[in-house]
């Protein structure tokens, strides 16, 4: 019995270590992950609270408050009162101070960090003998993690669908001769690729809508912006991701290689695009890499629309960037494309 078991065992082991792609994935990737996370989180420890300082004077040094001597607090100058108050409501600022003539401060009753920031402020003022500013309260529930993470998850889903549904499929077509058969017809490379892009665009958008609507039924997401703007953002993102998939698929002939390359592109994007955790507070290198990734801009724009209620004009830079990159990559892919 053991002889038979060992015979199969040896054959299976041989299969494993001779499969270089599989080997790489099993051994090298975990190492890359460990170093990747070390890199991402190697930045300086972040400040623990965010306090907005409303001041007509932009220069921070001229704004006076004993609170501002407190360490480990990020004091951010703001000049739009309504916008800053909205941020307090959404827990994006922990406390807002007006250090001008009418000395006031705002705090969100539901904010845990706001509560603590307020205690620190009182302590600072107690030590200083200056009078405490007037207290104003606002209310607003904290953002749930699921509200924050949803735009990223939709984008991530879109990325996988675009990469494997277009990129990998074309490589498979090339390998099994489907492309060769089409090459023998009057169909051009551009026509073929356009059809692939449009098909995947439709699929990905419908899937995103279905997932969104279905999940919304149960989880009731925050959606402060317009659905149309969000739709446009996702279209631009999908175009860009599909084109990335096409570039990878333009010449490859084996699915294993395509798989490997698609993974090399998708995993770093997953980690560094702010899908699961905010890139704020990560190391400078990680943030730099993050900015280079299309997924980052898609996630940022989607979040801006859903959570901050950003309008079309505000996310237009990201839309243009995604759409423009998508078009450029499509043209390059058409140029590089090989039928066999």
């Amino acid at each position, binding site marked *: 019995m053991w002889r038979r078991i060992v015979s199969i065992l040896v054959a299976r082991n041989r299969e494993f270590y001779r499969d270089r792609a599989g080997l790489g994935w099993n051994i090298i990737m975990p190492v890359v992950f460990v170093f990747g996370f070390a890199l991402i989180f190697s930045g300086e420890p972040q400040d623990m609270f965010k306090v907005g300082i409303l001041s007509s004077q932009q220069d921070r040094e001229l704004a006076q408050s004993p609170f501002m001597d407190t360490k480990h607090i990020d004091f951010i100058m703001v000049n739009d009162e309504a916008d800053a108050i909205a941020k307090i409501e959404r827990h994006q600022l922990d406390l807002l101070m007006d250090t001008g003539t009418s000395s006031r401060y705002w705090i969100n009753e539901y904010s845990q960090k706001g509560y603590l920031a307020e205690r620190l402020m009182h302590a600072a003022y107690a030590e200083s003998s200056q009078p405490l500013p007037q207290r104003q309260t606002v209310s607003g529930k904290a953002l749930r993690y699921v509200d924050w993470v949803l735009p990223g998850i939709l984008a991530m889903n879109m990325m996988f669908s675009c990469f494997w549904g277009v990129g990998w499929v074309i490589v498979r*077509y090339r390998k099994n*001769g489907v492309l060769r*058969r089409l090459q023998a017809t*009057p169909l051009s490379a551009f026509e073929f690729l356009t059809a692939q892009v449009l098909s995947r665009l439709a699929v990905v958008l419908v899937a995103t809508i279905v997932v969104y609507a279905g999940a919304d039924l149960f989880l009731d997401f925050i959606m402060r912006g317009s659905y149309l703007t969000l739709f446009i953002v996702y279209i631009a993102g999908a175009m860009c991701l599909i084109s990335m998939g096409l570039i990878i698929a333009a010449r490859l002939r084996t699915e294993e290689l395509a798989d490997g390359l698609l993974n090399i592109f998708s995993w770093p994007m997953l980690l560094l695009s702010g899908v699961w955790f905010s890139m704020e507070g990560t190391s400078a290198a990680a943030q730099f890499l993050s900015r280079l990734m299309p997924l980052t801009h898609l996630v940022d724009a989607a979040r801006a629309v859903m959570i901050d209620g950003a309008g079309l004009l505000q996310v237009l830079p990201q839309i243009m960037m995604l759409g423009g990159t998508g078009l450029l990559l499509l043209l390059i892919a058409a140029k590089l494309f090989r*039928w*066999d």
Partner: protein
Amino acid sequence: MTQLLEAVDLVKTFPGVRAVDGISFDVTRGQCFGLLGPNGAGKTTTMEILEGITRPLSGQVLYQGRALDREYREDIGIQFQSTALQDFQTVQESLVMFTRLYRESADIAELIELCNLDDILHRDTRKLSGGQRQRLLLAIALVNDPKLVFLDEPTTGLDPQARRNFWGLIETVLQRGKTVILTTHYMEEAQRLCDDIVIVDQGRIIARGSPGTLVKQHLPAVIARLPAQAWPGDTPLPDNCELRNGFIEMFADEEHRLLEQLESSGANLGDLKIESPNLEDLFLKLTGHALRS
């Protein structure tokens, strides 16, 4: 009058091998032209150059006297040796998809009838048998009512019955005035279907002509074969005999001469076979190795 298709001095190399080494021939409108040769001879590569899919290193292909252009694709139909079709489509859907890629198309209903696809129209293309698949691929090759049809080893892998049925189909296609260029390593196929053939080996043409003429030119009219041990040990072999692979082969231009020789030799004629030589024999003679390895 210009020939329908001309191959002029085609050369194509791959790393380490000269797959096509100076091949030239022309094809007349309405004929069935065959490229015959063993696997690895360069037939498929030559076909791909003729189809406009691969570019030769040097040489050119002329269609109706002109170099190949985009219009060429509208006029030709191709059946590849190994091809895949897109998954999850039925026979009918595949046909329609290809039809829409061309400006003009044939009568689909008629094609379906010709290629006997009625019964399998709604079947998934992945679930077809070898013979059904080849019929569908032929239909797809004819979907644009092409003037010129390329068939690359169309019956390889088919059982004898399916092969014969397919030959009938090709003959019908030829009757409609189309020109067919096919590759094969089955000499029976070339002999039955082709008006004109070239024999290709190691990237070069080693013979050209009609199957019947070629055989007559190079080989005698009759061959007799019998096992070597059937020959009496003390009698020497006559001049028109060869010993090959444990068999004695006797050649003559007339059957009765052979029979006289055999009778007078005293050989055991129990396992005697008398045949007319065919392309297989021709190929063996010209190259020293067999058509089918």
